């Protein structure tokens, strides 16, 4: 099953490679990994999307907690949470496609953020599955380029990950 794991770690050189190294050394999956500083400059927040059986996820959490730089780890799937990902897609937009691309983008509540003679760049935010659905709705041949940030996640309501 897919899990979104959030963690806070010391904002130090090499911290990211400790996490990435752990996943590759122990053969855990990484679907996506995002990292950025928080409002507290000494802390980085990382969101990892991974998949595995309950036993594997339990081990992942334990192994992450074992890393000396990791301050806190939370499996967002343990409770209600919100997941968001940003995607930029450059699509072919010539002739009839110019209208069609605009229409599909509107349906998915995307925004066209760059317009060129032969292409649009569409910005889309949502859960990973929404972004997947958007890509599936497009004819493969019209997609020129795709870039995704990987998921960020946050607990709903009072669920807070903070030091």
């Amino acid at each position, binding site marked *: 099953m897919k899990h979104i794991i959030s963690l806070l770690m010391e904002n130090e050189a090499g911290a990211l490679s400790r996490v990435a*190294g752990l996943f590759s050394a122990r053969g855990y999956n990484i679907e996506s990994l995002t990292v950025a500083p928080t409002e507290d400059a000494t802390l980085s927040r990382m969101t990892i999307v991974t998949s595995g059986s309950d036993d594997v996820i339990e081990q992942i959490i334990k192994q992450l*907690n074992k890393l*000396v730089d990791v301050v806190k780890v939370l499996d967002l799937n343990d409770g209600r949470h919100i997941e968001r990902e940003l995607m930029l897609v450059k699509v072919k937009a010539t002739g009839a496609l110019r209208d069609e691309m605009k229409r599909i983008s509107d349906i998915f509540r995307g925004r066209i953020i760059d317009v060129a003679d032969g292409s649009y760049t569409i910005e889309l935010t949502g859960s990973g599955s929404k972004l997947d659905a958007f890509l599936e709705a497009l004819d493969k041949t019209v997609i020129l380029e795709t870039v995704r940030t990987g998921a960020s996640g946050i607990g709903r309501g009072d669920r807070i990950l903070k030091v």
Partner: protein
Amino acid sequence: MDQSNQQKTGQISGAEIIMRCLHEEKVKFVFGYPGGAVLHIYDALFKQKDFKHILVRHEQAAVHAADAYSRATGEVGVALVTSGPGATNAVTGIATAYMDSVPMVVISGQVPTAAIGMDAFQEVDMVGVTRPCVKHNFLIKDVRDIAITLKKAFYIAASGRPGPVVVDIPKDITAEFAEYSYPKTVEMRSYTPVIKGHSGQIKKAVKILLDAKRPMIYSGGGLVLGDASNELIKLAKALGYPVTNTLMGLGGYPATDKQYVGMLGMHGTFEANNAMQDCDVLLAVGARFDDRVIGNPDHFLSVPRTIIHIDVDPSSISKRVKVDVPIVGHVQSVLGEMNDLLASETKKPDASALKSWWAKIDGWRTKKSLSYDGSSTSIIKPQYVIEKLWEVTKGNAYVTSDVGQHQMWAAQYYKFDKPRRWINSGGLGTMGVGLPYAMGCQLADPKAQVACVTGEGSIQMNIQELSTCKQFHLPIKVILLNNRYLGMVRQWQEFFYENRYSESYMDSLPDFVKLAESYGHVGMDIEKPGDVEGALKDAFAMKDRFVFMNFLTDQKENVFPMVPNGKGLSEMILGSDPNKDDAANEIEG
């Protein structure tokens, strides 16, 4: 020299700060090898008298010796190596210590800060290279961070589940000046190891233990590292339950005690492995159910039993085997609490169930799974050498081993009654550790008897340390079980590869006696069983001499019992089995 590198009043150099920190940590020995990037450090080292530097002949040996010093004493071992090849040579030693959770601080030199990333001479990304095999590592980028970083390094190495910590220090940092103050304590919000176990879980565990019909206590390296041997003995004695130790846990429970059923695992005794498989309640203490211990986990779990697992590292719990009562905490503290609870408990173990359980175990014992054919008067059996070693040293020696058949025989036939006496590479299985391990033990306890049980393959992997032993007058006794084969490889080839002995024969061996003598040591060739005991007595009588004993042993001897890879614990091949070779072949098919 720029302005920042001018010494101001009250300031000392980075190299001197390192010396002061090591002094604060009460370091007695630093094992190392100098080189360009650590020259400032070695210059500061030259001027101090707080600790002794042991100059090895290869950085790998420095780390192994520091590792053994730690295993023998419980203190943090310290090694010092230069950048680049010095650092990479240390990696095998670091990985060895990591796999066996040995607390150690390895200081490696690094090229000057400005040269990092420039592919400078003797540059390697040590923090990157060692990341997967350290508990933690640091690259120091400011002279003012040296003291706090070393404080953290020693704290991290020794606390929680111990392990090696690498501190990489660029050369320029060791030459710059800063004021020095060593923090008394260190707090890290991201690192807060647990000590006390959950009292509710401990109560539950005691209740389950008292209700057991076929109980078993299984303890590992964590018990030895956690110095909880006395607590375990007290617990086992109060309950009257059988105890087995893992390879790493030998000596944690006295081997000559009647409740001890021997080592378990791939080469464990018939009684230990069967009791492990057949028990209804298992108390695991500082052990991790690894593949060499429980064999095939599915086979192990095919019978129901309740498992209580005490470990300081939560990630060791339910990693390979799901447990029923996990207790995360320091083994000494948890076992102490269990003993207190038992003392105030009116309920006693089920005496009649225990009696029939012991009868069953005694039945397994009659198999005498460690018996071997010792009738030959011309060929020395390796097992016999270890038995005699135990007798001659009265069970009191530090025994280090390398990796292979000799390691298993040492583990099976030397009866360790005390913890921290059996020093071997259990996790990583590093050939070549034996001699440097013996150096670390001898320095830790100069008057003690130290035996390095080794093979002719392993000993040659760090043979250069004969020179270090000469320099520091280390009266180690090398017990070389020389069968002219990479014995364990040959054994597997015999069992599982139809006797195709691919590259497992050791040709062109040196004359070990002459080799030892060339370093000023004593060498002995022992070729007859009748000479074994006398030679050992002679060797150990030479209290101030390094003696290299070359025992020519049976070339065809195999280690039994053996649980073939992927098989269950109770599916052992025994040495007494007349069809043992066929049995092995059939199993691998």
